[in-house]
């Protein structure tokens, strides 16, 4: 399952990297915190669920373990001036699932059905050669696009369709669609009471959980 990744691109000038001892201390600190471990495993579940191909290969706890190993082995650097350890771990898990999904997509058999090569229009006429030739999408990008489209459909669209136009849950999702990506941003944009906000989010998370588990292979 291990793949070579180059994380040089994520290095910025002035970055201060954690030492081996600092990394081991951070890992051991989390080991003693049951609550953070639970939260990180839940994070791993959500990240893992984003790639159908990765879901076939491993479990969320494997993703968590491999991310910890990558940081401990210094295959992934920790710029401690920019990110805390939990944030780094989450970033590494996301990057690993994304890279592995792409690697697995490349290994998928390159099968094109005849009707896909020569799609028929409404008049049952084959598309002209210029149109077919103009399709410059590679097999890899097609697989990735289709997977992405499938996920978009199964997550944001399906999730949003569950709620009415003025439901607080739907309004939360609308804010995400409009550009908000943190709890603070969404809360500020909605301006609603704490208890109402968190209760609505719990419901959204339950629904997301259900979608994630329903799409298991």
């Amino acid at each position, binding site marked *: 399952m291990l793949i*070579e990744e180059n994380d040089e691109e994520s290095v910025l000038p002035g970055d201060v990297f954690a030492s081996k001892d600092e990394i081991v201390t951070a890992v051991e600190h989390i080991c003693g915190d049951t609550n953070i471990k*639970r939260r990180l495993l839940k994070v791993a579940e959500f990240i893992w669920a*984003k790639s159908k191909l990765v879901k076939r290969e491993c479990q969320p706890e494997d993703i968590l373990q491999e991310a*910890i190993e990558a940081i*401990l082995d210094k295959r992934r650097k920790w710029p401690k001036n920019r990110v805390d350890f939990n944030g780094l771990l989450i970033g590494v898990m996301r990057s690993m699932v994304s890279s592995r999904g792409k690697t697995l997509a490349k290994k998928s058999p390159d099968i094109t059905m005849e009707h896909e090569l020569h799609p028929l229009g409404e008049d049952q006429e084959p598309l002209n050669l210029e149109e077919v030739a103009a399709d410059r999408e590679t097999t890899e990008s097609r697989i990735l696009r289709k997977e992405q489209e499938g*996920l978009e459909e199964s997550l944001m669209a399906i999730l949003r369709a569950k709620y009415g136009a003025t439901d607080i849950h739907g309004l939360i999702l609308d804010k995400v669609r409009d550009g908000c990506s943190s709890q603070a941003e*969404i809360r500020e944009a909605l301006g609603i009471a704490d208890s109402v906000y968190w209760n609505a989010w*719990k419901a959204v998370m339950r629904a997301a959980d259900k979608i994630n588990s329903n799409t298991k292979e």
Partner: protein
Amino acid sequence: MIVKKTSDERLLDAELDFIMNAPQEHFDAYLAETGTDIAQMDRKAMLAFDGALKNHQKTNIASEALANLTVAQQKAVATNLGIRRQVVTAFREHRVNVSSISNGFLRRLANELGQTTDALVRALLGPAPAALMGSYKSDEKPDSTSMRVTFEQLLKEANMSEEEIGRLLHGD
């Protein structure tokens, strides 16, 4: 270059932010409402952390086993594997693109070092021990993936014959 996130990616950001930062009572209630088996969850999380620490120890041991080879041992390893000593040096300095090495060769090298293949692979994927990199300037250390060479390239640079290279690349 700043890449605009899709709504799906922003949704994941918000979901992860909820998981990591929601007030404890709300996070606990969410787990309870989803019927999470907390004991099983704690066991899986513990195994992930313990497993990572154990594997890291094995990785360190494999990395040290490679780095600490004496000249005589390097010669013996090179002879037993049918390679030149400079190839062994490249492995000690983690200068080889790991995905370009055949499983058979990795297994034989791991055997020579008395390590598991998994531990050797993890070691080779990481940076070489600092002591081995003393002669390089700080920004030229060959520990980045982009500076590594393929196994085939390494064997060619060591002037090994096509027949030897073919055997090392494709043999069990």
